[in-house]
C-alpha cells in the first residue's frame, strides 16, 4: 500500500503580514483543551491545577498565565480553556492524568484558529468589528472575552497590553481573517 501518512495543515497556511506598524499572524502549534468542572469539585480542581501546572482556576473573563505559551482562559463559570505549546501527543490524555475525576476534558486544538494582532493600530482595527470595550482600563492585559465579530463567534484575549489573540472557529477562519484585514485596510 502507498504511504498514507497524514500531514497536518493549518487553516490559514501560517498567514503573516505587516500593516504599517501592526503585525497580524496566524499562531500555530497550540494545544487547546476545554476543562469543565465536575459537580462540586471546583475547589479541588483549582488546587490540583495550581499543584500540577502552577496556575489556579481563572475567574470568568480573566487569564491565568505562566510564560508565553501556558495559560488558562476563564470563559465560563464552570469551564476554562488550557492553552499551551503543542507537545505532539494527545493533550487530553496528558491533562486527564493530572486532574483525574475533578474535570471533564475536551480537545479543542483543532476547533479554533488563532490570530495574533500586535502593534499600535490593533485597537483601532478591532474597533471596527469588536463590540467589547478594549480600553486599557476595561480590558487590559490578561483579560479574555467571548463575543461575536462579523457574525462569527470569537474569543478575544489580551496576553499583554500591545497584543491581542483572536480565536475563531476553524471553518470560518478565512472569513474572519478577511474581517480583520479589512479592518486594518479601512483605517
Amino acid at each position, binding site marked *: 500500500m502507498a504511504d498514507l501518512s497524514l500531514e497536518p495543515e493549518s487553516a490559514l497556511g501560517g498567514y503573516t503580514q505587516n500593516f504599517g506598524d501592526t503585525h497580524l499572524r496566524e499562531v500555530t502549534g497550540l494545544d487547546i483543551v476545554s476543562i469543565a468542572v465536575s459537580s462540586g469539585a471546583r475547589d479541588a480542581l483549582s488546587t490540583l491545577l495550581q499543584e500540577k501546572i502552577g496556575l489556579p482556576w481563572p475567574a470568568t*473573563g480573566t487569564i491565568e498565565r505562566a510564560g508565553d505559551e501556558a495559560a488558562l482562559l476563564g*470563559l*465560563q*463559570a464552570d469551564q476554562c480553556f488550557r492553552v499551551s505549546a503543542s507537545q505532539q501527543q494527545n493533550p487530553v490524555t496528558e491533562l486527564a492524568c493530572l486532574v483525574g475525576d475533578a474535570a471533564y476534558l475536551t480537545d479543542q486544538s483543532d476547533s479554533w484558529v488563532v490570530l495574533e494582532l500586535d502593534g499600535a493600530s490593533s485597537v483601532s482595527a478591532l474597533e471596527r468589528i469588536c*463590540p467589547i470595550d478594549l480600553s486599557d482600563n476595561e480590558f487590559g492585559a490578561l483579560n479574555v472575552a*467571548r*463575543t*461575536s465579530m462579523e457574525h462569527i*463567534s470569537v474569543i478575544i484575549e489580551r496576553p499583554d497590553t500591545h497584543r491581542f489573540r483572536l480565536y475563531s472557529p476553524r471553518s470560518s477562519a478565512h472569513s474572519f481573517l478577511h474581517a480583520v484585514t479589512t479592518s486594518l485596510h479601512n483605517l
Partner: protein
Amino acid sequence: MLIDHPLLGLRDAAEFVYLGDAALLNRPDASSADALDSFHDYLHLRDNVAGEHRELWYHEQGDRSWLVITRNTLTHAITAVELARDVAMNLREGANS
C-alpha cells in the same frame, strides 16, 4: 440594549438570544394525573405583560449562560439579571423544603 451579565458586566444584547417568559423554568411534573393540562398551560399560556417581565435570554455569543432578566416591556429598563441556573436551583430547593 445592554445586559448587565452577573459575571461579565455590560454586554450588547446582540450577543444574546431571546427565548421568552421565565415561567418556562417551572416545568410541570410529568407523572401527575393532570400532566397533559399542566404541560399545555406551561407551554402555551403566557401573560402579555405591559411592565416588568421576567424572561429568559441566552448568552450564545458569550459564556453560554442562560439568564433570567427582569425587563420593563414599556421602557426596556432592566432591573435585575440572574443566572438562570441559580434561579432554577432555588426553585428546586423551594420545592423540596
